[in-house]
């Protein structure tokens, strides 16, 4: 294990570790643009220059491997001057766009300028190079070549992560610009990660552009429910509105997230969001809706009608178990169904799972534990309670259903407006058997309710008061892993 001295302190490095990594691991931050931990080393931005004793020139920390006894300085006047100079070069032809640039608040140019630059521009405005602006480069992205600092993170991302290689550097010298190889668009499933890794405002997300300043956003850690991979995400929101989703890089599941998952927040505030429940085709406030639903169930129970309950791979463990409890303990029905086991694998070699539901690993375990029937066995029933997406797939007469839904749908007589998992907690087991929880980042519309609370309220109306312990016992019976 090589020992190195950085800024006067001794550290033990790993074999073949770079100066930048050793420093970062020990809390010494070295500024960088082109370096990204998940991409190959390009060494082109020259921002991470450091002084290494016995080497005549400054060296780039991102590409220099440590050797035993190396003495590194990251804060000398020589290093600071080099950073200032590199920054001056980077800003030389950079447009004065900041007031209208989306990157403000998370822009490396601005951040480092405040730390190292603070120098007046020495070039006349009219001498700045002009490059293409506002290029519609793909489904989700806008490219501003003038703002680009040519760090090639985006090029390397498309080469190394998605392996689609759409981008390249066109031309040479200070006329170089990021360009797309074919006439086609930059349209891979992970394109929005490019907006994240772009250290400046060159790549911006069409979805997020001009909606909100990033420094006004708060972040909530949660998980993505778009497929069984269950990536960790950061949900960014302000004033009760979600603006974007970013990946929450971790060693277990994901460094990136897919574009589809990134757009999944749209269910919270889309035009078709169901904000009030509908019972017998009439819109009701929450309390009234619960009582109306209770009346329907009570009548059905008294008449000995066949009531079926669907568990759902889309719903959390808590919600599924509450549904099971409602069916088995309260409504005393044995017509409880769940989907059959799904094949799970990363189908694109990156993150997207073949299983497009977030919780089938938990629901299939619940099914086994409680001997629950499969959807295919559902032949006949008089009344059915289930999650909207499952009912849609099952071909059940819609007037017989009570659908738990985020989405408005006029074809249904009964729809209960439920909270999304951006608005309520829920536990899920991903394809690797990690148990993770969503966290509410925004508050739900007033007249919506979580499935768990709904089941609880109905039980209470039937005169049962299940203890939390009773509903949570399921966690003792499930197989799962935690991250630590």
């Amino acid at each position: 294990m090589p020992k190195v001295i950085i800024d006067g302190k001794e550290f033990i490095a790993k074999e073949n570790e770079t100066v930048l990594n050793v420093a970062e691991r020990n809390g010494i931050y070295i500024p960088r643009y082109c370096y990204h931990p998940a991409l190959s080393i390009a060494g082109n931005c020259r921002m991470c220059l450091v002084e290494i004793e016995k080497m005549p020139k400054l060296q780039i920390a991102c590409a220099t491997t440590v050797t035993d006894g190396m003495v590194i300085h990251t804060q000398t006047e020589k290093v600071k001057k080099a950073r200032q100079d590199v920054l001056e070069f980077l800003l030389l032809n950079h447009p004065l766009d900041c007031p209208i640039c989306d990157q403000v608040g998370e822009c490396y140019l601005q951040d480092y300028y405040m730390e190292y630059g603070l120098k007046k521009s020495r070039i006349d405005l009219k001498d700045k190079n002009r490059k293409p602006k506002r290029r519609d480069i793909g489904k989700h992205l806008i490219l501003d070549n003038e703002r680009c600092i040519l760090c090639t993170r985006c090029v390397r991302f498309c080469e190394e992560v998605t392996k689609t290689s759409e981008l390249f550097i066109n031309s040479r010298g200070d006329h170089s610009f990021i360009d797309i190889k074919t006439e086609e668009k930059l349209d891979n499933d992970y394109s929005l990660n490019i907006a994240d890794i772009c250290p400046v405002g060159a790549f911006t997300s069409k979805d997020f552009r001009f909606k909100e300043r990033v420094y006004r956003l708060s972040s909530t850690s949660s998980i993505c429910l778009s497929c069984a991979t269950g990536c960790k995400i950061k949900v960014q929101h302000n004033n009760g509105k979600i603006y974007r989703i970013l990946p929450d890089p971790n060693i277990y599941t994901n460094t990136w997230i897919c574009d589809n998952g990134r757009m999944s927040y749209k269910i919270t505030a889309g035009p078709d969001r169901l904000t009030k429940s509908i019972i017998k085709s009439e819109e009701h406030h929450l309390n009234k809706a619960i009582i109306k639903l209770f009346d329907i169930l009570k009548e059905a129970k008294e008449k000995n009608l066949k009531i079926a309950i669907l568990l759902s791979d889309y719903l959390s463990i808590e919600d599924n178990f509450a549904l099971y409890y409602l069916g088995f303990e309260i409504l005393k029905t044995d017509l409880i169904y769940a989907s059959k086991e799904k094949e799970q694998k990363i189908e694109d070699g990156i993150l997207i799972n073949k299983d497009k539901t977030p919780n089938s690993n938990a629901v299939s375990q619940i099914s086994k534990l409680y001997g629950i029937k499969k959807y295919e066995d559902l032949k006949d029933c008089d009344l059915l309670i289930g999650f909207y997406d499952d009912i849609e797939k099952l071909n059940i007469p819609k007037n017989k259903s009570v659908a738990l839904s985020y989405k408005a749908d006029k074809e249904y007589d009964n729809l209960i407006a439920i909270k999304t998992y951006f608005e309520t907690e829920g536990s899920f087991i991903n394809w690797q058997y990690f148990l993770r929880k969503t966290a509410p980042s925004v508050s739900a519309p007033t007249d919506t309710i979580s499935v768990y609370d709904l089941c609880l309220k109905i039980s209470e109306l039937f005169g049962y008061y299940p203890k939390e312990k009773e509903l949570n016992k399921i966690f003792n019976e499930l197989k799962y892993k935690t991250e630590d």
Partner: protein
Amino acid sequence: MNILLNDNFDLKTYITNGGYNALKKSFTLKPEEIIEEVKKSGLRGRGGAGFPTGLKWSFIPKTKTQKYIVCNSDESEPGTFKDREIIHKNPHSIIEGMIIAGYAIGATKGYFYIRGEFAREARIIEKSIYEAKEAGYLGKNILKSGFDFDITVVRGAGAYICGEETALLESIEGKQGKPRIKPPFPAVKGLYGCPTVINNVETLASVPYIVIYGGENYSKIGVEKSSGTKLFSVSGPVKKPGVYEIPLGLSFKTFFYDWLGGMKEGEELKAVIPGGSSVPVITAEEAMNTKLDYESLQKIGTMLGSGGMIIIPKSQCMVELLYVLARFYHHESCGQCTPCREGSGWIEKTLNKILNYKAKKQDLDLIVDISNNMMGRTICPLADALAMPVISFVQKFREEFESHIEGNCKICGK
């Protein structure tokens, strides 16, 4: 060592003059013995950097992996045209040198990377390779030695930067010519990730001589640390411009008066760029007191470089000349590293203003400052190649630049 023997481009003539005898001798030696001879000869890379050739060869690991030898014939440095002359007059010496180098380092495959503009030269080399193959000097089991070697000609596409050895490798691999970060050096991870030696045309052409006459005899030519002969391609208003092979250590004065015949009538010597446009300029006085070898030129703050000597007369405006150089380096910057990409364009723009009497007083210090900020902070030395002329031009001919700022240049009269 007669690199420029006349009519040697023909295989028959080459063989009559003792061609391919060095190769035959090489096969009687062990590869290590050849490397040892080259080390003894003191031969240094003739492309510009002057790195000891034998040492470079000895860095190649002794493993059985695929190795490559690449001949760098991307001669693009303004003022340099010596390699072209060797290709014209003695192409087989390069090919022979390559085969010997391949045998010495254990490479079975050679690439002849030739500048895109050298269309005629590429044809010459291709023809020579064909001749050598027909005669059994290339291909399988060369001269029944059991050694296989083949050469492929790769033509560049006109980028100066592809003369930088790692950019050259990228270019052979079909990528954009952008220098790689070193380490790893090509000797460890070069072409297609395999150990690779890249040598200049002139370096390789010197190898057969060293093998035939021995390293020690070669080292007797020239001076201590600069042994052997070196080609100088001389341009500018001298009586006899052209390519000359001189023993290293010759005094500039002798070379200038006895070989080049001095300046043309009516011209007076002002300055010399001794080793290609990227090395610092020296004044006539400095030039007259120096010798032409690696150390002497280094002592006065310049470099031997590629030997592309540019003679500058008093009638030439230095601002104009520097502007031409800056325009070249700006155009040829690959754009990878920030300081070079942005700095080269900035210098050109500022010099343009100075040249056209539009500059402010501080612009002169600005270009020096930009140059200093570019120096030594990039992956390859292209930034330095612009910075060094800028700094030396302004330092040594400041009054000419000032006259352009004040608006009364008497030389270019613009």
